Structures are given as C-alpha cells and as structure tokens.
C-alpha cells in the first residue's frame, strides 16, 4: 500500500518536476553557446522529451512488431517472409481479407451516405435536436452490447416455432420462411456491417451536420435566387463545401472498418465465413500462440492504413495552405 502511494506521488510530482528541471537545464546550457547555435538547437531540445515518448510508445513497438513478424512462434529464429506467405495463402485468412474489403466499402458508403442524408434533411426541420439525438444514441452503446442486441434481432428458430428474433418474426409474418441471417454467407457479413452502420451513422451525421452549419446561408440563397432547385443547390454548393468534412469522416470509417473486431467476435466469432483480419490477428496471438503470424497481420493492416492516412495528411496540408 505504502509503496504504491510513494510511486504515485513520485509520478505525479516527480515527472513534471523532472521535465521542468530538464527545460531549465537545457536553457542554462544553451546560454553558454553562441547565438547561432542557440537557435538551431533550441527547438530540438524542447521537443526531445515528446519525441522520446513517441519513439518509445509508438515507433519502437512498430519496429518490434515488424521484427516479430519475421520470426517463428517463439520469437527466436528468423523465418523470412513465412508468416506473410501463410497470411496470403491460407484460405481462412483470405476470407478475412475479402470480408475487410466488403467492410471498408459498405461501412464507409452506408455510414457516410446515410449520415450525410440525415444531416441535410434534419437541417430543415424544427425537431432537429430530437431526431439527431435518436440517431446518435447507438454510438453510446458499447460494441459488445450492440452485438448482443443485434443477435436477438437476427435470432433464428425453425419454421413453425415461435420466432423470437425481430427480423425473422417480420419475415414469417409476411409469409416467408425464417432465415439464418448470421449463418448464410456472404449476406451474414452484410448483416454484421449493418450493426456497425447502426452505431456509426450518428457519428458521421453529427460531424457533417456541424460542417453544414458552417456553410454561410448567403451562398445557398444566392444560388436559389439564381434559380437553382434544391438538388442542384446540394450538388453544386453544399456537397463541395462539405467535402473536407466528408473526407475526414470517410477516413475514420475506413480505419474503423479495418479495425472491425468486437461485432464479429460477439456475433459469429468469425464462424460462417464472417471472419475479419483483426479477429484473425487476435486468434493467432491469444488462441494459437503465434506472435509471428499475428504481427504479420498487424503489419499488413498498418500498410493498408498508411495510404489512407497519407491522403488525409495531404488534404490537411492543402487546407492549411488555403488558410
């Protein structure tokens, strides 16, 4: 008990003290140097602590993951690209990769599309806050919770039995046989993506709605005065001005789709050809004890995300330049 208290005090008090001490020290040292060197060195010395944190918590693990991905399951001997070869030749992982592509396309298109539609539509009604709250609510539910809720929606019982699943109750009421929504590939992956869309649409809507409020009404009014109808106003004025926000939201959704794990784990645990790359990575590491293979998957995921981040950063730079 005592030692933990001491450790806590040392961290809370000692760490800031250390950092301030560091700054005072380097300033004292810099004052001894000629002016030209002072200006050259000062920025580097000031960001050195931040850089070292970043290096330790971000760069080092990344490099270590790459190294691990080239080693065997005991992380001892190097096996070259065997783990990558396994990843790209195993039928199970290829299914995961295919599913992630479906996730990226559908989740991004649906969540951003529906979010944009709702943002634009509720902008014109009096009960906007209420409508937005309802759409936003699912984001507050944990993914595991959402997965369990939707498992009830997709629940299956044989024909003739009472249908406890909402969807099958509706389907049978309409006179069709009940379906095993979570077992029939490839529609089961879409069934899972719908859960993610249900969660993330609210997020997209809120960001896009905020961006929409930032567009000055004069622009739209001017267009309407010039005789543009509402569809034209949206296509020529609103959407182009919303594009930066759409790009940010879409990037977030692409990364979310690549990281998709909870919903799949809870609802099908990767069975019935619904596995995704993140679930595969989890399984390789914690179930199969294959850190090499798991690291290889992590590296592949990283490589897939890099271009998205690159495009995003370039866009940010362009916007900065305009300002």
């Amino acid at each position, binding site marked *: 008990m005592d030692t933990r208290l001491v450790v806590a005090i040392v961290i809370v008090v000692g760490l800031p003290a250390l950092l301030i001490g560091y700054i005072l020290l380097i300033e004292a040292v810099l004052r001894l140097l000629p002016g030209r060197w002072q200006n050259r060195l000062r920025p580097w010395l000031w960001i050195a602590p931040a850089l070292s944190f970043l290096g330790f918590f971000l760069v080092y693990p990344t490099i270590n993951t790459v190294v691990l991905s080239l080693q065997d399951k005991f992380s001892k001997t190097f096996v070259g690209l065997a783990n990558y070869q396994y990843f790209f030749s195993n039928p199970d992982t290829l299914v995961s990769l295919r599913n992630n592509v479906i996730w990226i396309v559908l989740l991004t298109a649906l969540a951003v599309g529906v979010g944009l539609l709702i943002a634009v539509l509720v902008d014109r009604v009096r009960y906007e806050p209420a409508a937005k709250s309802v759409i936003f609510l699912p984001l507050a539910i944990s993914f595991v919770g959402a997965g369990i809720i939707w498992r009830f929606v997709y629940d*299956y019982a044989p024909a003739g039995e009472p249908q406890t699943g909402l969807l099958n109750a509706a389907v049978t009421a309409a006179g069709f046989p009940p379906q095993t929504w979570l077992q029939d590939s490839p529609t089961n992956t879409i069934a899972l993506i719908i859960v993610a869309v249900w969660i993330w649409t609210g997020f997209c809507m809120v960001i896009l709605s905020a961006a929409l409020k930032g567009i000055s009404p004069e622009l739209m009014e001017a267009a309407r005065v010039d005789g543009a109808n509402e569809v034209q106003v949206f296509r020529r004025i609103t959407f182009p001005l919303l594009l930066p926000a759409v790009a940010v939201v879409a990037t977030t959704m692409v990364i979310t789709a690549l990281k998709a794990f909870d919903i799949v784990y809870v609802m099908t*645990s990767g069975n019935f050809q619904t596995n995704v790359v993140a679930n595969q990575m989890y399984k390789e590491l914690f179930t199969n004890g294959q850190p090499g293979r798991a690291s290889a998957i992590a590296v592949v995921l990283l490589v897939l995300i890099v271009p998205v981040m690159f495009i995003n950063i370039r866009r940010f730079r362009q916007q900065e330049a305009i300002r």
Partner: protein
Amino acid sequence: MEERIVRRSRVAGSLMAITLLVVACSSGGSSASPAASTPASAPAASASGGESPAASGGALGGSVSVIGTWTGAEQESFMAMVKPWEDQTGAKVEYTGTRDINNILTTGIQSGLLPDLAGLPGPGQMAEYVQAGALKPLNDVIDMTAYTADTAPGLVTLGTVNDQLYGIFIKADIKGLFWYNTGVYKDGAPATYDELLAKGKTTADGIGGEAKTFCVGLESGAASGWPGSDWVEQFVLNGSGPDVYDKWVAGQQKWTSPEIKAAFEAFGNVIANTFGGGKNANATNFVASGDKLFSTPPGCVFVNHGTFITDAFKKTGGATDGQFDFYPFPTMNPAFAGAVEGSGDLFGMFNDTPQAKSLVAYLATPEAQAIWVGRGGALSANKKVTSYPNEILKKAAEALVNAKTFRFDGGDNMPQAMQDAFFKAIVDYAQDPSKLDSILTNLDSVQASSYTP
C-alpha cells in the same frame, strides 16, 4: 474490508457446519480415520513450515503448501474438505488457487520452488513431471488396497506411471450422458448405441410433427462448437477405443484417418436427426439445448451432456426434479464397452514432508471426498462415497465408478490452436456436412503445425 469480514464469517460458518456434519458422520462410521494413523507413525521432525511441531501425541503441527485450480466456491469446498484434517493434526494448509497452474508447476520444476502438494493439469503433464523426477510416488503413502478397490479402475490407471501411483483423483465429472424426459421416453435403457438411435427414432416418430431423436446446441460464443467436439470424442473413444483416442489427442492420429472420419460421420448422423437440423444447432446456445425435451409437443428425445446441464433444464427448460433422467453412453463397439469421457482433478505430491504425506493419505479417503461431494458440484471416483445431494448425481457417480476406461476431454488436452480448429470444424460441418473431406484435410494441416514444438 467489511465485505471480506462478512465473507470470512460466512465461510467460517459453513466450515463449522461441515465439520459438525463430518464429525457426526465419522463417529457413526466403522473405520477409524486413516489421517490419525499415518501421521502418528511418521516422524514429525522436519516440518516444512519451519515451526516446531506440537509435542502432543498424533498432532503434527507445521504446514503444507498446496496449489490448485480451485477458486471461489470450489476453494471453499476444498478448504472445508481439509478442515477436519487440520483440526486433527494441528497442521495448517496454505492453499493458493490459480488458473495458471501449468506454468507455475513447469517453471517450479526448473527452479525447484514447488508446493508440497498440487493439483495437476492432466495425466500428460503428470507423466512429464514424473519423468523430470519432481513427483513423488504415493504407493507407500496412501492405503493402496483400499484406493484400488474403491476407485474406478480407469481413474487408477490414469494416475499411474511405470506401475507407481503418482496422482490421486480428489473429484471427477462425467460426460456423454443421454438425458431424456421421463414423461416422453419410456422404452427402457438402450444396450447399444444403435439401439438408442432406433428407440429414439421410434419415440420421435410417435410424437410426430417436427420431433427428432436429438437436440443439439452448438453456440457458445468464441468456443462455439465444443458440444459437438464432445460428441466426436465420445464416438472416437467408444467406437475406436482408448488407444486411437490417445494417439489422436497426442496428434499422432490423422483427422482424415478412417477412425476419426467415422466419428465425424456418426456426429453427422446425429445432426441429420436433430431438431431443426444443423442450422438450428448452430443457432442454439448449448445452455438451451435441452429446452425442447420439455416443450409441448416435445421437439426431441435425447440430449447428450454432462451433469451440469440439469441446472439448465430447470432454469431455461422449465423442468422440475424427477422430470428428467439419463442413460450412460451405450456400447458402440463391444471391445470398448464401459469407456467414459469426463474430467477429473488429479492431485500429486512434490515434497514428501510428513504433513504432505498425511494430507494426501487423508484426501484419498472416502470420508474426505464425501465432504466436497456433499456440498454439491462434484462427483467422487470412490465407490464408498454416497453423500450425493440427489439421485441424479448418485447415479452419475455410479456410471463413473463403473467406468472400465476413463479419458479426459480430448479437445481440452490438444494444443489450443488444434482445439480451436476442432470447434470451428464442428460448426462448419454442422452447417454443411458435404464439406467433411475438406474440413478434415484442414484439421490435418493444423495438426501438422500446432503440435511441433
């Protein structure tokens, strides 16, 4: 803090009640407690706890360190079990419960820091510890004649390496029981598995409608498929015998071999005769698998599970005590009749201190095992233990004690990657039985990569 005190006093209360019960039982019993005789003869000089033993006659003093997998309610049951021994000898049991016992013992053998007594993960690990010279034989420690006479032969064999006993079973459980609704199935005990299939089908046809012979529930989150793996294991054990079973679990028997394929096909036959078919089996949680035994009209005749399922019968199936009963797994191949799959808690000795010897001798007795059994949640492999809280458990214990061959759950003893692939294969097979060959080929490739060190 308050909570802890409350819990302690509750534990103490139950311990006291148990002690009273045991005292009452043993005073009525004919045999004197062996715990008293063994320590009295053993020299009580080198107490492992470092304390000097009490001088009074029979009392040992000192302490025994014990590591086991039991935590929570199970830990309370174990402590209740050793309490009479502690009272009698004056020695203390220092118990540590951990789920990571395999790691602790393996590293302990390397470092030499081992508990006096420990629960062992399984027969395979036990044999490894014996080969490392870490486990001490128990032949001269416990009453061997009584132990071999009263314990299921299959379980004695599992605890034996090179004709020496190294592990005793403190408790055990049994799988592969065919549960039925006593109001629906009235055709008597099936002698063979084929007879069970035939009689089940007759009953199901009599019910008519959608009723089938079996109900199966495979859904269990990330472990979905395990109930089917139990089916396949039972088919391997009862159909092809313990030798094939052991080779298969050890990774030396291919999944594509005729024996294992036949077991999968037998499970495929079960799925074909399952209420709602494979899709419904995959959509049904294992806990709810027995619900259809008790619906009107019933959906099925038999459900295959261990004794734990009776709780679910009552909670989700709405059944009451006496409405259900079971038959042990019937004979598939006469050569392997009486083979039983189950689980058990092996217990071994690493340091032969007088206290440890005395405690092991005590734990092997029916008097000690009756304590845990009486608290519920366990079966004893000892014939003399009869303190079961209900008739069903008593009958299950009889099936266990009469087991000629006893094997641990095979999937649990495979490498994790293998077990995971096994579960997944069950789910895939139940969904589409036509894919059996590719499923088994895939399992072979997992076998090739997951067993190699």
